[in-house]
């Protein structure tokens, strides 16, 4: 039974990671990466590593998406600024 939870979590991580690579638009990739962070925290918990899970939750749920989305916004705003000048 404990093995069943581990298998479920492992397959979810594999699926999320593949989806994160296959999603080519950075904005949508940030959404998948935030889901990957949560799923990974669950995997760490079932592998009995709550400390690592806590660290993954803290980083993956809000910090990484915020950094990625701010970069996307900066690059987009810059491109829009250039368009307007033309």
């Amino acid at each position, binding site marked *: 039974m404990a093995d069943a939870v581990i298998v479920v979590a492992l397959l979810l991580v594999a699926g999320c990671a593949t989806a994160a690579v296959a999603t080519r638009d950075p904005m949508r990739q940030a959404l998948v990466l935030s889901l990957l962070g949560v799923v990974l925290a669950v995997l760490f918990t079932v592998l009995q590593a709550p*400390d690592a*899970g*806590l*660290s993954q939750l*803290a980083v993956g749920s*809000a910090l990484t998406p915020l950094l990625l989305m*701010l970069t996307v916004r*900066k690059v987009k705003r*810059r491109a829009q600024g250039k368009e307007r000048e033309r």
Partner: protein
Amino acid sequence: MTRRARLWVLLAGGAGLAALLVAACLRLPHFGGKSHPYGDRAVHASLARQTANTISSVNFDQRAFDTLGEMTILFSAVLGCVILLRQTHDEHRARPEPAEVAPPVRRYALVVLPVALLSGLYVIAHGQLSPGGGFQGGVVAATALHLLYLGADYAALERIRPVGAYEVADALAASGYLVMGIAGLIGGTAFLANTLLPYGTFNTLSSGGTVPLLNAAIGMEVAGAVVVLLARFLDQAVEIEEESGT
């Protein structure tokens, strides 16, 4: 090389690497096996020094020197970001127009901010007892501050967040960790050795010798680092614009 040729080279190399990795996986000790010599010794050493959370003991006592290395990477990564994202002379700052935030969202952000900040401090403080520690709690506390940007606007965040103070706190925490290490050297044993303070009673806040102090230093360092990082990114994304005509 064309994209197509490059893809073929990649696939050939990837297939070779995959074959090697699978061969290695099949020869690894089986998942869930009974033999963990390092783990058993680490648990034993941690219990001998009255630290309830073995992982904190590994991080801040048995492998404290390794954590110093990690902290250096963190510090230099933040330094790199600060240099890369500084305002150059052909850029200027534009006041962003405040966004209109729906009242329930604003109220939620203002209520959750102190709760999240306290949880972050709780996670740091309980680092040597229950799951948690400076690395995790620092990120939680620093992220909590940015609820003010999400729930109100950037100007509100800037008022309670003097970036200079966080930069100083970051540097102080990093040097605090080093000073603790040198204190071990002066105290007669070795760099970062956990021999200075009494180990205390098992499973209390003051147990573990220098572990809680190093843990607190890392918590401050990580919180300062994340605040400074996000400040630079927010400046770039929200305020800094290039001069027209460049």
